[in-house]
């Protein structure tokens, strides 16, 4: 069966219908991106899929004993709270040191273990959140606008790392993003959401779809091509390093 699926899902928030009639499924190893304007219900869909939001009607099904790794939008850590990266990764459950090291390595930041959380750059911080999501060897990684606050190269590098992680541990990836062109290049499938699923398919199909262009305009098409070019280059480069 699918890892996660929704059947005729309708969601209400504060009495308003934010999403209706959504059929969705994600398979093992797939990378799926949900795009949509603000208030389109994409975050609600994510929350319903992880079980944080109850459907008004329809249903959500999860594979038995599904392990979810969740990367939140942004995490604020109070400056009064001293916290090293490795201590952070031992919350709420203590982990074996080898598990922590492995997660940091997979997230691409093995050198950060002893740094203070509040001293990290935005990109480093998101990598640590990714490492945290990888601790329990998830079947699926769920990212809710995980690169908000990062600049474009930073986002691109982050998503490339996600792709690598997927290739290494074989987990599925489900993400919500604003960074359309950056994210779409790394996705197997894109879901364009605006109260319902407007269109769905490969990144190229969605970017060309009239429904998508109606919402986002045509401007991102060029950036997508540009990104793909850079992406190939960087990708080869990282393999040389490895």
């Amino acid at each position, binding site marked *: 069966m699918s890892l996660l699926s929704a059947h005729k899902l309708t969601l209400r928030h504060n009495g308003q219908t934010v999403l209706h009639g959504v059929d969705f499924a994600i398979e093992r190893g797939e990378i799926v991106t949900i795009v949509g304007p603000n208030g389109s219900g994409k975050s609600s869909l994510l929350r319903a899929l*992880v079980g*944080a939001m109850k459907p008004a009607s329809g249903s959500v099904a999860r594979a038995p004993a599904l392990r979810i790794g*969740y990367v*939140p939008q942004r*995490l*604020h*850590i*109070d400056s*009064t*709270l*001293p*916290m*090293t990266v490795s*201590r*952070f990764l031992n*919350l*709420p*459950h*203590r982990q074996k040191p080898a598990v922590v090291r492995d997660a940091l390595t997979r997230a691409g930041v093995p050198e950060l273990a002893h740094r*203070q959380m509040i001293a990290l750059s935005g990109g480093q911080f998101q990598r640590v959140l990714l490492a945290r999501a990888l601790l329990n060897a998830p079947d699926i990684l769920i990212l809710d606008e995980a690169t908000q606050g990062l600049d474009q190269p930073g986002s691109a590098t982050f998503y490339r790392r996600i792709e690598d992680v997927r290739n290494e541990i074989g987990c599925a990836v489900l993400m919500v993003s604003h960074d359309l062109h950056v994210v779409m290049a790394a996705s197997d499938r894109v879901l364009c959401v605006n109260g319902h699923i407007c269109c769905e398919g490969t990144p190229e199909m969605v970017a060309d779809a009239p429904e998508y262009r109606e919402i986002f305009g045509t401007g991102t098409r060029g950036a997508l091509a540009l990104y793909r070019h850079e992406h190939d280059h960087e990708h080869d480069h990282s393999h040389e390093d490895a």
Partner: protein
Amino acid sequence: MLDDFATRAALAGLGVALAAAPLGCFVIWRRIAYFGDATGHAALLGVALAVATDVPITLGVLIIALVMALIVSSLSERLVSTDALLGVLAHSALALGLVAVSLLPGRAIDLDAYLFGEILTVTSHDLLLIWGGAFAVMALLAWRWQALLSATLNPDLAVASGGNPKREKLILTMALAIVVAVAIKVVGALLIAALLIIPAAAARPLARTPEMMALWACVIGAVSALGGLHLSFAYDTQAGPSIVTIAAAFFVLSTGIAPLLRRG
């Protein structure tokens, strides 16, 4: 040994300091300093009600502190602007307590003792209560440490990994009420919050992990308690404020020194 009033005072100060220090860390991390103020100030009302109804004073303070802590806690969840509200509650509780004390018929209580503490008159019975409370608080914090930290760090993440931030908040609220109840005799209603916050704040620049911060806060709190008592004996100053003064000196020292250490 417990026959000596100075020894009893020292033990009382240590007990309160050791319970207040780690709890104070959570008060700082969660930015709820006024929470301590409001609950501490409400203690005076607890004293007045306990005397009026012939209930043991510690019990009266414990109950009122708990009620106050629960009110503040539930209000702060519902309202966005809690800063002003907590200020209103903290000072109103103090004023109400002072009014209640002066309304007590016939039996004048020593107001100074409850405002500033009277650590030098601590009895063996008081010591038992103080250390019993201190152990309860320390056990509570040690037992829930990981969960409390997770909930403090980020409630959403805690929920996502199966935690219950509301429960942890309630545990902190109860711990706070216990500390207030046992601390009133030692530092008095006015300065209870100081004993919570200052050692923890002084510990912040010295620590790289939450555990080390709590440990340093305990050390600084304990040394402040003993040093304050010493100051009080030597110069005949009031004990409670003396303890807080020493703690404040540690804060100035650690905040001033930390940047120098980091540079070197």
